[in-house]
């Protein structure tokens, strides 16, 4: 199959959506080439109700809560993706065969889904600070404007409280934060009473900014407080990339092509020839484009670039936030079941911002547990299941999970390369190495200890620390770092060094990753890159 387009965007995640929207606003209709896996089984099965009502009334709830093949019952070692609910499993479908990874130290979660990994995004929105943007290689002034533009497009809700510097920052376009659930309320109440001591330790807590509507917008409903965000996207209150893409398709400002897996590109004076495979038939596809914006994720875009510009013993750098989570008992909520409607998203964040060390902060996102079924908790307890059920049934209303992210810098001990792999359709696999130095591990452990102390002061008793391994943060960046024209780097405008019209709009360029979630920054960067791609374009 041969296709032709002016602007080709590879991928369909949050970066791709913002790139497509930017081009559409400039009157350019982009083609999006994407594998585009969707949920074909569960989307229509989940009733338009709330979690508690479903649990109390629906006789067939096991179909989507456990899955057709009981794939919703996790067993074995915890790794990224294994905790996805059955309606979200499509996010990782086919990844093992198309995107194999060989590594003892790094287990990423990648996606062939329409919407990419953001189809299961927790919707947390964070601006990088000026220091962080400069360290990452971004233009801080341009990014400020881009953040606000993205917020206006997708709809963000939040509050200017103590968490503001780490969430909304200078963003002006936002809706009021959703109502807090009772766990989040209790946490912030405790924070307010102990604020001085926590701030002195470097901890600041507040409401997270979320890509979730608290008021209707552009035909999307406001948050329904149905506590089903791990299972469905009824009403569209949570922004997903396909929300923007479907809107553009309706306006005839996007040509979305699913079932396409891009493998490599060749640029010449006649344009860019993009090679791809049909994901169902493996038929070869050729796309000719004037400009290409790679938005396949830092790992996906790196694969395409390494295939397109092969070099012996080529290694590219790799960034991924080290991550752990701490299940906690929140004393104030013991024996106080919350059976009302609730948001279900993680609504509060605890940010560690040590004075004089702005690049070494931490982020703790706090989640209450109700919408994820009790049985999953029981496996962690070294006691008989019968007694575990009785004990955890009482404790579950007090459970909070603190997800702690650490910052990460470039290092020679963190890299990727392509190696031959006969079983994959592309003939190659990604080999990854990811190790932290002793001093980095030490810093992270100290940070985690401080978090445990802060959690204690916030009325949460951490039960244990679970480290699911590198790659589990699902934050990846830095494979084609911003530079000054060296091979396998990006210019600050996103142009791939050595090319005239190949841009990279995802996080591949970020030279450093702060502890905060990066999705909002990916989108802001993609908007700027797409704007740059419009320059020198003579129609």
């Amino acid at each position, binding site marked *: 199959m041969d296709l032709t387009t002016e602007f080709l965007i590879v991928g369909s995640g949050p970066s791709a959506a913002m790139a497509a929207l930017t081009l559409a606003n400039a009157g350019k209709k982009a083609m999006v080439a994407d594998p585009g896996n969707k949920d074909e089984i569960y989307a229509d099965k989940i009733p338009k109700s709330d979690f*508690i009502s479903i*649990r*109390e*009334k*629906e*006789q*067939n*709830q*096991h179909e989507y*809560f*456990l899955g057709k*093949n*009981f794939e*919703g*019952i996790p*067993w*074995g070692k915890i790794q990224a993706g294994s905790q996805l609910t059955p309606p979200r499993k499509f996010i990782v479908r086919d990844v093992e065969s198309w995107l194999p990874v060989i590594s003892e130290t790094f287990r990423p979660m990648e996606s062939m889904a329409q919407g990419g990994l953001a189809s299961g995004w927790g919707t947390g929105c964070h601006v990088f600070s000026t220091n962080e943007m400069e360290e990452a290689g971004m233009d801080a002034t341009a990014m400020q404007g881009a953040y606000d533009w993205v917020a206006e497009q997708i709809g963000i809700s939040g509050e200017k409280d103590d968490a503001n510097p780490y969430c909304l920052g200078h963003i002006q376009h936002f809706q009021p934060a959703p109502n807090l659930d009772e766990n989040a309320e209790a946490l912030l109440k405790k924070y307010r009473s102990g604020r001085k001591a926590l701030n002195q330790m470097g901890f600041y807590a507040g409401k997270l900014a979320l890509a979730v509507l608290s008021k209707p917008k552009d035909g999307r409903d406001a948050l329904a407080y149905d506590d089903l965000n791990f299972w469905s996207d009824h009403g569209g209150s949570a922004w997903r990339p396909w929300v923007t893409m479907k809107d553009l398709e309706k306006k005839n400002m996007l040509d979305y092509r699913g079932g396409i897996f891009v493998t490599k590109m060749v640029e010449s004076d006649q344009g860019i020839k993009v090679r791809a495979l049909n994901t169902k038939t493996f038929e070869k596809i050729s796309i000719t484009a004037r400009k290409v914006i790679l938005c396949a994720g830092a790992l996906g875009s790196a694969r395409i670039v390494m295939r397109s510009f092969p070099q012996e013993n080529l290694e590219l750098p790799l960034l991924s936030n080290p991550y752990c989570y701490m299940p906690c008992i929140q004393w104030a909520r*013991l*024996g*106080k*079941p*919350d*059976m009302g409607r609730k948001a279900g998203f993680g609504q509060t964040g605890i940010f560690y911002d040590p004075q004089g060390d702005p690049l070494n902060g931490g982020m703790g996102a706090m989640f209450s547990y*109700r919408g994820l*079924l*009790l*049985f999953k908790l*029981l*496996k962690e*307890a*070294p*006691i*008989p*299941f*019968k*007694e*575990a*059920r*009785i*004990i955890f*049934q*009482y404790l*579950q*209303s007090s459970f909070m999970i603190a997800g702690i992210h650490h910052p990460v810098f470039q290092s020679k001990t963190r890299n990727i390369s392509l190696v031959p792999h006969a079983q994959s359709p592309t003939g190659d696999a990604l080999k990854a190495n990811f190790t932290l130095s002793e001093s980095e591990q030490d810093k992270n452990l100290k940070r985690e200890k401080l978090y445990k102390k802060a959690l204690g002061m916030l009325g949460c008793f951490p039960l244990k620390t679970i480290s699911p391994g590198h790659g589990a943060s699902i934050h990846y960046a830095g494979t084609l770092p911003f530079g000054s024209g060296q091979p396998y780097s990006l210019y600050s405008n996103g142009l791939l060094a050595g090319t005239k019209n190949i841009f990279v709009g995802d996080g591949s360029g970020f030279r450093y990753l702060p502890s905060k979630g990066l999705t909002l920054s990916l989108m802001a960067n993609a908007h700027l890159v797409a704007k740059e791609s419009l320059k020198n374009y003579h129609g």
Partner: protein
Amino acid sequence: MPENIFNPEIQMEHKDWKHEANVFGKYLTGKLPTNIEVDLYCSAMEKNLTPISPKENKLLVWMMKHPSFTGWIDGANALQHPEGIIRKKIFIMTAILETSGNQNNLFLPVGFSPFYMFRLFVSGIFAVLKTIGGLIIIRWI
């Protein structure tokens, strides 16, 4: 054959799964599971066939003949073989019971009451005692 080698010739029959479902269901909730819950368990076993070691199979066969000791073996396995097949089977049955729509009162959050606090305390004691007993049984079988 060494005890830690999975023997592919050990196959569980379908009628064994029904009996397992009844034993595990009764153990977890105090009452026999419904036909739907039993069918779901059998379907889960069919779709998640995992080879079982001769040692664990011997233990499972003994449990099925002595169902009142299920909790004891479960407790011991929680310490010694938390990722074993028997624990996995009971875990799957727990998941089925939670989402079958019949036993929500056993899984949805509950509030404070003196009776429940007493029940928690007693459950804790039983958990410890069963585990100790289970460790002895496993050594003996």
